[in-house]
């Protein structure tokens, strides 16, 4: 099902390309030895290189290069053995050199793709045009003084990977799925923490509309959207705006727009006429970056298992559905948790408990999977207790809640609280007999043909057993006794 905007002049298709800036996880900045860690008092992580002092020169940090290469593998892309850094020239107070060192026509990574899974089960392949390395700028603070702006250069020079998709995205949902997939890939690799709310992953969206089959329309670029949901909203709004404009006989102008998340509206930031000419040219302070086959091979060997491979493995090894596998692999930590919990246990059931009870409980507690009070080993053990009949799945709900509240092992909880399932025929029969004896009129009704009352008897006997009776046995025995 493609995403179509119905207009008066016919159907409209949207065309989206995303540019995502990922802050590279590394100890030091891209071209200086200054620390690249987040936080820290203003201007405490700044070297003379970062501050653009006279005579200072950039020297490439190979840790950042390796992160970019690994990410390139994650994007199924070509790693370019020669790439070149270029200067993007513009003036701003947060840009100490008056230029940003970036890569223009020779990026370190090009021509890749990622496959994204949609809710309807479809898989879409989104092309990646390139990934290049560049420096982040500093930060301006306008709220420190009535008439002055302050500059914090802690972020100036931190490495970014700019990942540019091809204009292959056709719906807000695909954009969302693409971003989630990209985030999961960089997190698996450990090249970016992917936290959009902290700005370590930022997204620009290029949006245009067209009648299906026609050439691309003029695009508008929506800058710096800071959550996946907002990106989806911004695309939806912008596409509608463009369709309305075109249908009224107007023209879309190539411009930079800004998304206001409070109103859900995009607004003009600057038009093409006022666009800056960045005067790109190769940075003469740096020599072309050449990668050896040895380095590329070593990094390829070091690649962790990525979401796609893991998904495939989860389906094949654990018999999960594609949908369930997707849910589990989206976050590396969840996948790791699942594998630990599923090891030697009923993986499908473990998966269900993770996606149902565990996610629900963590959500309520506001905790991440790594902070889960239920350890993966305990969850696996609980599933064993269900499967071997020690507890019923109904009791399991209680056991699970105790595990969340008290953090104990399921065995401890079952023993302490006496929650062990009653699977002893005579014990269950005894309870049934009592219930039958106490409700002669209901028994008569049942026997006269009111079958529906069976459920009522099940409830009563289960209640009398404090929920511990083995439900299957209880059902069978009850039926026998009632029928007489």
């Amino acid at each position, binding site marked *: 099902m493609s995403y179509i905007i119905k207009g008066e002049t016919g159907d409209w298709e949207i065309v989206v390309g995303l540019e995502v800036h990922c802050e590279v996880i590394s100890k030091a900045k891209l071209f200086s030895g200054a620390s690249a860690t987040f936080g820290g008092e203003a201007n405490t992580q700044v070297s003379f290189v970062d501050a653009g002092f006279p005579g200072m*020169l950039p*020297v490439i940090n190979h840790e950042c290069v390796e992160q970019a290469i690994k990410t390139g593998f994650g994007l199924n892309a070509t790693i370019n053995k020669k790439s070149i850094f270029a200067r993007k020239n513009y003036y701003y107070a947060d840009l100490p050199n008056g230029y940003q060192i970036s890569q223009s026509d020779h990026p370190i990574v090009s021509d890749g793709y990622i496959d994204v899974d949609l809710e309807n089960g479809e898989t879409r392949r989104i092309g990646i045009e390139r990934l290049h390395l560049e420096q982040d700028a500093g930060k301006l603070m306008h709220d420190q003084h009535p008439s002055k702006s302050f500059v914090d250069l802690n972020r100036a020079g931190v490495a970014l990977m700019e990942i540019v998709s091809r204009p292959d995205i056709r719906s807000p949902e695909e954009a969302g799925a693409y971003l989630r997939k990209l985030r999961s890939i960089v997190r698996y690799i450990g090249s970016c923490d992917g936290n959009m709310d902290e700005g370590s992953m930022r997204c620009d969206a290029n949006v245009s509309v067209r009648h299906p089959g026609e050439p691309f329309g003029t695009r508008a670029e929506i800058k710096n959207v800071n959550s996946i949901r907002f990106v989806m909203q911004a695309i939806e709004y912008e596409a509608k705006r463009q369709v309305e404009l075109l249908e009224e006989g107007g023209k879309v102008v190539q411009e930079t727009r800004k998304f206001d998340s409070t109103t859900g509206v995009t607004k003009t930031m600057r038009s093409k006429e006022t666009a800056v000419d960045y005067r790109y040219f190769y940075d003469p302070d740096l020599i072309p970056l050449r990668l050896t086959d040895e380095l590329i091979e070593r990094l390829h060997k070091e690649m962790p298992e990525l979401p796609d491979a893991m998904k495939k493995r989860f389906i094949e090894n654990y018999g999960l559905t594609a949908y369930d596998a997707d849910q589990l692999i989206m976050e590396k930590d969840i996948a790791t948790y699942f594998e630990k919990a599923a090891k030697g246990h009923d993986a499908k059931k473990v998966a269900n408990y993770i996606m149902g009870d565990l996610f629900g409980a963590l959500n309520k507690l506001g905790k991440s999977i790594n902070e889960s009070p239920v350890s993966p080993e305990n969850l696996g053990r609980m599933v064993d207790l269900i499967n071997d009949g020690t507890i019923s799945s109904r009791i399991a709900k209680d056991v699970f809640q105790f595990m969340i509240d008290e953090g104990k092992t399921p065995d401890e909880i079952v023993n302490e609280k006496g929650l062990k399932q009653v699977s002893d025929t005579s014990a269950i029969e005894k309870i049934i007999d009592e219930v039958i004896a106490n409700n002669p009129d209901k028994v008569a009704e049942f026997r006269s043909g009111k079958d529906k009352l069976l459920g009522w008897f099940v409830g009563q006997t289960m209640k009398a057993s404090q929920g511990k009776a083995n439900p299957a046995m209880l059902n069978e025995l009850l039926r026998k006794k009632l029928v007489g």
Partner: protein
Amino acid sequence: MTDLVELTVAEALDGLNKKEFTSVELTQAHLDEMAKARELNAYVIETPELALERAKASDERRQRGEKLGKMEGIPVGMKDLYCTKGVRTTACSHILDNFVPPYESTVSLNLQNNGSVMLGKTNMDEFAMGTANLTSYFGAVRNPHKDKNNPDKFLIPGGSSGGSAAAVSAGLCMCATGSDTGGSIRTPASFCGIVGMKPTYGRCSRYGMIAFASSLDQAGTMTRTVHDTAIMLESMAGYDPKDSTVVNIPVPNYEKALTGDIRGLKIGIPREYNPDKGLNSDVRHVWEKTAEKLKAAGAEIVEISLPSTKYALPTYYLIAPAEASSNLARYDGVKYGLRVDGKSLDEMYTNTRTAGFGKEVKRRIMIGTCILLEGYYETCYLKAQKVRRLLCQEFAEAYKKVDVILAPAAPETAFGKDDDSTKDPLKMQLYDIFTVPSSLAGLPALSVPAGFSDINGLPIGLQVIGNTFNEETVLRVAGVIESVSGMPYRPLRIGGK
């Protein structure tokens, strides 16, 4: 004791080793000479206390018998382009005239670690942009040489390392650092009658050197003899992890290269360096005479052709300003240096840069900015880069046939500060015509005094241009030129002895 300023570096090292005098005495002699010659305006800042302190430390090292540097106790001048920790460094621009670097450039640090003693910062063209040392915020430098027909004429020393050249020539230091982007060492060396060497691009670190055009800038030496050049170059060159363009190869023992024997060496004479117009007859005469003398010394003279030479100047004047426009963007009033406030950020930028930069610097920033704009980038900048590659190839071809190339350093001798040519920036560019090709190709090139003009009595330098990282052959040939020319190498002491 006054005669100490007459010594060469090699002689002074010998005297210091033999305990004939101390570094403090040697340093003091130069400080005294500097005081007598302030009219040259060779230094923009003198650092006598620091110098004497370092000289004393050097003497103590010598006294204690510690391991000594290659230039232990030798007083040097430092071009104001090199950042010197705690000593104001301005590139002779108003925009940096309050800038005191908290770090030391690698070249000045190497020299310091080799025991040399910095006397002060020498005058230069603003941001090394100039051929005559007329663009300095601190005023023009005077060449200590005199036109025999007009002794009162204020002669320029050449640029951009004009302060260093004048200081070395007049005995205000034993040697000095220069920097060469398109001839900034070789032109003033030729005009002031000293030896100036630009080594191969990538031989010396650019860390802490205020950038003009990064792909061309190279640190170099200004001395009174070729032997001193060898000593000084060895003391400042070498790999530096802080500069990605420095090549990680060992620095040879340059003194050993000075064998005085050039028998069998092939010396190329490029016919494109001998145009009908644009080369003065006195310079041509010295060039031809020198070639004859080298032939007599056993070298083979080979005529060669470097056909793209005529494109070198326009190529240089596209690439250098383009890089400069970007390199100088950091001087914006935000972080250090001059700031002239304004009502907005843009206005502050404009006010600061309008007040802070001189005319020539602004001219080059504007040209460079324009060249990098969409449209011009393809037609000007990329084309210039192609010509640059072509020039490199032609030189590479030439070095299959010859060992070094012999050429004039400048088309004429030092000219007057108020000559008409100094008013026309395009005419001024023509002075770089023989130096920019080797700059674009990154080759080692040295200017050595080879004779006096028969017209005005001023010194004339010749260039020896070598193959990449082959400074040794350049030095060897230059050493022979020095001895066959018989040019004086004692300083021209304008304050008298």
